[in-house]
């Protein structure tokens, strides 16, 4: 499982959302950004774990650990890297109904 789980591939048709919007071509190279996953009161744990596995290619153990971190602490840094990819990952997590944001890594 890789990160090629754009919203378009979820729906299974046509060019990707990134291709249609140019999201992947955005700047921000060199400065690391975190993808922050926020806890919410309704999302199933299984959905969170599945999303983390699909979007980031994580194994079950890591996905479950990150999910539990967000659940217990209110949020969890689930990925760090280039800003454009971080934003794309947020979009992907959003298609599962998950709340996530990007923030400059400190």
């Amino acid at each position: 499982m890789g990160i090629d789980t754009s919203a378009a591939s979820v729906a299974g048709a046509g060019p990707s959302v990134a291709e249609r919007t140019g999201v992947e071509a955005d700047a921000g190279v060199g400065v690391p950004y975190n993808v922050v996953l926020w806890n919410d009161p309704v999302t199933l744990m299984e959905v969170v774990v599945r999303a983390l596995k699909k979007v980031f290619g994580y194994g079950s153990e890591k996905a479950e650990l990150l999910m539990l971190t967000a659940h217990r602490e209110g949020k969890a840094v689930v990925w760090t890297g280039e800003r454009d990819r971080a934003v794309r990952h947020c979009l992907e997590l959003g298609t599962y109904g998950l709340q996530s944001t990007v923030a400059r890594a400190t």
Partner: protein
Amino acid sequence: MTRRRRAGFLRLDDGRIAVRLPSAVRSFVAAAAERLREVGESPGSPGFARLFGRIDETADADDPAYVLARQLAVDDVVAAVAASAEKPVIDPEEAEAWLAVLGMTLSRRSEELGLRTEEDRAGITREDEAVIRVVYALQAGLIDALDEPEHA
């Protein structure tokens, strides 16, 4: 985040997923997709704020390209669910779209209900809680079918 389980989906030998749901539940899924489309056209609504909220905490506003990308993402899954809601068998991509619509539906509804903590759920109506439980059952069934292949 919460744990729950099961509902009517079965992975077939060819990889597709048989949908064994009453017509009322199929209608519920189709209506959920339609409601998401409506929310996408209602920028002032709480659901819109949740689904299309700011991604970059360090910026004054998100790049319009990101906003557009989110809109297209919602449009894509809504279209996929509308096209497959009555099918007896769906392919994995359509199942992923169902999962997406159900997830965004929960997210939208929780914002409309003002849920901020799990304790807040104690204050919602029995009807709203029933809807959440239906969504949970469908999500769990879809995940089981997608992740743990079964055979007819």
